[in-house]
């Protein structure tokens, strides 16, 4: 799942932290040196560009200041309570599910491919980022 205040605000996403570009492309099913590979490679780069592991950041720098990850999300980033609950519920499904964030969803510069990923292809892409099987 994703959360962003608006197009120009902070963007949060829960991802299986074990994913990498090779797994992403394999799950999508692209062939080498083709347009499909190029397109989904750019999509991966766009999603992961400037993406920060929020939990790692919390544990490294903010644990002393905020008593829990929930407090950190609520007080530091003003993430709404119901969104935090949804994040934690999703995280409880798999120990590799991790919250990441970036300052702007379009930081990669390619507005079109990110919009396509998180609007038109939202269910399919978020399932792949969680390494879940997609059920239509």
């Amino acid at each position: 799942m994703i959360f962003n205040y608006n197009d120009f605000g902070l963007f949060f996403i829960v991802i299986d932290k074990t994913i990498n570009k090779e797994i992403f492309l394999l799950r999508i099913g692209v062939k080498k040196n083709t347009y499909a590979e190029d397109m989904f490679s750019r999509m991966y780069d766009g999603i992961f560009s400037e993406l920060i592991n929020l939990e790692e950041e919390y544990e490294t720098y903010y644990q002393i200041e905020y008593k829990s990850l929930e407090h950190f999300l609520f007080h530091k980033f003003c993430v709404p309570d119901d969104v935090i609950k949804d994040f934690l519920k999703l995280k409880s499904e798999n120990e590799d599910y991790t919250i990441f964030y970036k300052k702007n969803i379009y930081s990669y510069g390619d507005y079109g491919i990110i919009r396509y990923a998180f609007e038109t292809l939202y269910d399919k892409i978020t399932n792949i980022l969680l390494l879940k099987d997609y059920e239509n």
Partner: protein
Amino acid sequence: MKIKFDFVTNSSSTSFVIITYDDFTLENFIESVGIENKSIFEDIFEDLFYSFKQNMKNIQGYRHRWMKDGESMEEFIERLFSKETLDKIIDAQKKGYNVYIGELHSDHGENESFFCTDAFIIDSKKMYIDATVDGW
């Protein structure tokens, strides 16, 4: 003066050329684009195939609306696409292959809208598609 009170939308279109070395079928297109048949994303490329199929016109005698006065099709192709694509077209025509030209539209559904804004080349043994003009 007219005043419009509801949504104001902006649509656009971008051009492509297609050289076919084999039948322009969905099967050949999916193979050329490089997506696995079992992929959950096959449908978006199927949509792209039908967008091309609906909009492709034989280049022979075709007058593109973006052509300048007195401009030949060869000059137009080189100006809009590239010398490389022009050479491929000339070579294909000499060998008797079919060459098409057309446009994708941003207001013809979410998938065509994305591909309309993406710049790409599909180059396989069965077809060559230059849609590099499509970058916005």
